[in-house]
């Protein structure tokens, strides 16, 4: 049995989760506290992947990444980066695909804090940035954790987007979900079963661990 798809999948999930944490933090902060009326538009765009069939997202990313088209050409020319059928492309796809999970959790985390915490820090002379890192974030750890877990798990299970923009290149884009699909197509049920069972056990243990930590932090 080849474990490479596993490593690749976990590598993708870890990178995606960390990237999303960095990207979502300012977005969620803005969505939680801004008084701007146009906020709902940004919210709608961020949450689109929730309601969109993954293949639709994958299809448009496929068009976008194509080196014949504007963005693809631009990236190719200035960064010699080809996102199509590559691991980097998978990262970009996963980040967009899982964005709502991270943003929503962080946004809820911010909004569930008593407003007076933020206000108190300001009246004590602290900047927004210092307040964010020293007061707000330490008091919303469960929300951060929930965002990270959901993003991670969601990336593990990705299929539609990956299939369309990544294809099936071993060591590059052949993730576990793709590998399982391939084994089933080849009627190689034994390997498919092993892959699947391993995924099931890993996913379950991960969730159990998270809920355990969550339960403990509540006490």
């Amino acid at each position, binding site marked *: 049995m080849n474990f490479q798809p596993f490593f690749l999948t976990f590598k993708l999930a870890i990178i995606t989760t960390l990237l999303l944490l960095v990207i979502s933090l300012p977005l969620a902060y803005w969505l939680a506290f801004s008084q701007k009326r146009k906020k709902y538009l940004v919210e709608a765009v961020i949450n689109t992947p929730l309601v969109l069939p993954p293949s639709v997202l994958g299809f448009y990313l496929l068009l976008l990444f194509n080196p014949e088209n504007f963005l693809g050409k631009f990236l190719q020319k200035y960064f010699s980066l080809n996102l199509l059928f590559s691991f980097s492309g998978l990262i970009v796809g996963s980040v967009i695909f899982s964005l709502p999970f991270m943003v929503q959790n962080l946004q809820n985390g911010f909004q569930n804090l*008593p407003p*007076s*915490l933020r*206000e*108190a*820090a*300001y*009246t*004590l*002379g*602290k*900047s927004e940035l210092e307040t964010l890192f*020293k*007061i707000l974030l*330490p*008091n919303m750890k469960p929300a951060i954790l929930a965002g990270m877990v959901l993003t991670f798990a969601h990336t593990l299970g990705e299929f539609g987007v990956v299939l369309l923009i990544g294809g099936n290149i071993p060591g590059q884009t052949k993730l576990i979900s793709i590998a399982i699909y391939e084994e089933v197509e080849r009627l190689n049920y034994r390997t498919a079963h092993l892959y699947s069972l391993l995924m099931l056990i890993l996913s379950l243990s991960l969730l159990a661990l998270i809920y355990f930590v969550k339960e403990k932090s509540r006490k």
Partner: protein
Amino acid sequence: MTLKLSIDKKLLDLSGTFSLNLSLEIETTTFSVIFGKSGAGKTTLLKIISGLLSPDSGLIEFQQTVWFDQQKKINLKPQKRKIGYVFQDYALFPHLNVRQNLEFALENKKDWREVEKILEMVKLSELANRLPESLSGGQKQRVALARALVRKPDLLLLDEPLSALDQELRASLQQELFFLHKELKLTTIMVTHDLGETFRLADQVLVIEKGKLEKKGKPTEVFNSEKISSKFKMIGEIIEIKKNDVVNILTILSGNNLVKVIASDEEAENLKTGDKVLVAAKAFNPLIMKI
């Protein structure tokens, strides 16, 4: 004149919008109480003074420094106004212990001795390593107050700081508050709807109703006409008027009590059953019984 303020801000309440529109001046080192019903705009006023909210228009000046001027587009952030603010829910940082809560307020971490001094002053030294959730209401209140004092504010703003505490604790914390106010020569503004508290602490009362400044002055002046008097007063409805030789006996329903009172012919002349009346009696010699 230390704090000068003249502002206007539209506010929402259940019955629609009303505007918080008032001008006031507060002298240095005085203790002012903002008194009024909930929803009158008291907390909003404190937040506007602190810079946490901005008025729609107006001017706020503190000791010759302009904090807010809508016309000149000046709006100093709360961080730049030298204030201490005690929130109604105390707003202690849950992940920091008592000492860390105070240390957070320091501008320079080297001034940690200042924190120890204040802890001592409000008798919190023994609780310094405890997390806020393990403290009682009164202790939390003292931490919140202590934390607000770390920056040595010129202006101390208190939003119903004692409203969640029982009567006995309130009285002792009121004394403590008064002591700190005098000792540190603070200019203090406190929001409350407790009359006793107002009398005990305030040099000046500002009564706010529906966003307007209704009355202003010493507590005894402001509340003299209606709130305290040597009379008993009740409002009721006349149920029956019975003429009895030289006097009239009125039966009046007030709340759930039926009361019979005597009225002269002249008084009874203008009254009929169903009228709403105010009954007042001088309290020279009332019967007082413990129940």
